[in-house]
């Protein structure tokens, strides 16, 4: 299925979807050495984002979070691509300086996307190829 959106960070990448219903803070919310979400009480606490297509509503927390995304991309623990409901400055900056393809404002809401489905994100065209069924939610 072809899902349209808006390109934020260029490049193309493929991975399995990891969907977070809650916003993510990269500073103190994600371990920069392992790519595991460590924020207490976060729905994805303990989950690794490494190599996933990480879908979440928007970023939160400190602007220093941009540098954490850069660190993750340098040590091989970054998400393959990022999909946001609405991009904000911290995640957009981190995605670009980390060379991580990113899109937002997708034509299908993120809650309808199923975890584990294989997707390809194209940050140049702002689109996503979704190889699966949508959830009923």
């Amino acid at each position, binding site marked *: 299925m072809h899902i349209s959106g*808006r390109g*934020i*960070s*260029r490049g193309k990448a493929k991975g399995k979807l990891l969907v977070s219903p809650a916003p993510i803070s990269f500073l103190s919310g994600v371990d*920069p050495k392992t790519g595991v979400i460590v924020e207490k009480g976060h729905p994805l606490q303990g989950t690794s984002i490494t190599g996933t297509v990480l879908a979440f509503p928007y970023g939160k927390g400190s*602007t*220093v979070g*941009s*540098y*954490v995304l*850069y*660190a993750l991309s*340098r040590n091989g623990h970054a998400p393959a691509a990022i999909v946001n409901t609405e*991009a*904000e*400055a911290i995640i*957009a*900056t981190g*995605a*670009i*300086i980390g060379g991580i393809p990113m899109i937002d404002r997708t034509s299908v809401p993120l809650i309808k996307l199923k975890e584990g489905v294989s997707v390809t994100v194209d940050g140049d065209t702002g689109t996503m190829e979704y190889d699966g069924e949508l959830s009923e939610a």
Partner: protein
Amino acid sequence: MQLDRDDERILAGEQGETKQKMLELIVALGKVFGAERLVPIKSAQVSGASYKTIGEYGLQWLTSLDAKAIVPAVLNPIGMPRERWEEMGVDPDFAAKQQAVVAAYERLGIALECTCTPYYLRETSFGDHLAWSESSAVSYANSVIGARTNREGGPGALAAALVGKTPCYGLHLEEKRKPQVIVRVEADTRNWDISHYGALGYHAGKLVGNRIPFFSGLESATPERLKGLGAAMAATGAVALYHVEGVTPEAAQGLFELSGLEVINVETGDVERLFKEIPVDAVAVGCPHCSPLELGEIAGLLKGKVVTMPFYVFASQGVIDRNQKTVDQIEKSGARVFADTCMVVSPVMEQYEAIMVNSGKALAYVPDMCAAVARIGTIAECVKVATE
């Protein structure tokens, strides 16, 4: 987003990978903030200069870049004076990391000035578009000078310095600069100095939040006093632009529609209540960094006296260099004039229990940033307390 042919070439990588990435970043931030086009800037002021803030990853990123700033650009204050850090008692390991961050910026063509008062170094004019980061500098540029800048994040401001443009949204647009709330000051302000204006900003910032205030009743305003007002309002609120009736350039044009706006009244007591006589073990002034005029006033007050507790004065290196005689007079008293840093960002200030300041911004930040009690007083009171 409208882009011109030069932009397209940069995005195609014709001027190297760093500039390509930096313009991508500017375009992405433009999308995030709803900009329709980019605007050329006159200068940039880049935050993310302190190693304490950006850490090892930030330093790695800076080191990976390869381009030169094409507009004049300076840095935010850092945790230590670049040259006199040992004298100030800064840890050598921290100093080495901090020097590495500064060196990385120097390689990118950023001037080695770490200051919140870039407007004392290079003339900034009404209507100039800028990409500045530090909250008090942004407030001063917008309000007192009538230049135009949003509060840029570190990477965004660096990108603007390297590409010479920033996304055109927010305070770059005339229609986004109108007053949103009136603050009516009902006090006799004739004897007020910077500290009173700072205390007013400390109080008003909490009430106006992120709105654009229009002040009335501040006929005693001077540029230095307004610097103190704006710095404090940006600390306790998120004010990046304010207007002062009959004083600031956009208010002086008299074109604002004020009817229907909420009115907040401020009285003498709201400001004077913040001045408490408590014992202190250090004095620190220069938040924001001192102007030549302020240095002269401090030198005059300290003449023939000796300080009995640590007395710090902070100013930009450029202002210090151009006023070396005045600085020497101040230091003759035992006070120290340091560049590049301040009481809010230097870890050295954490050694004190209570610090006296003449700044509303420092009053707001010293308790959290230095884990010390803060006392505000006029510059004359600061000198009196430190030389008793």
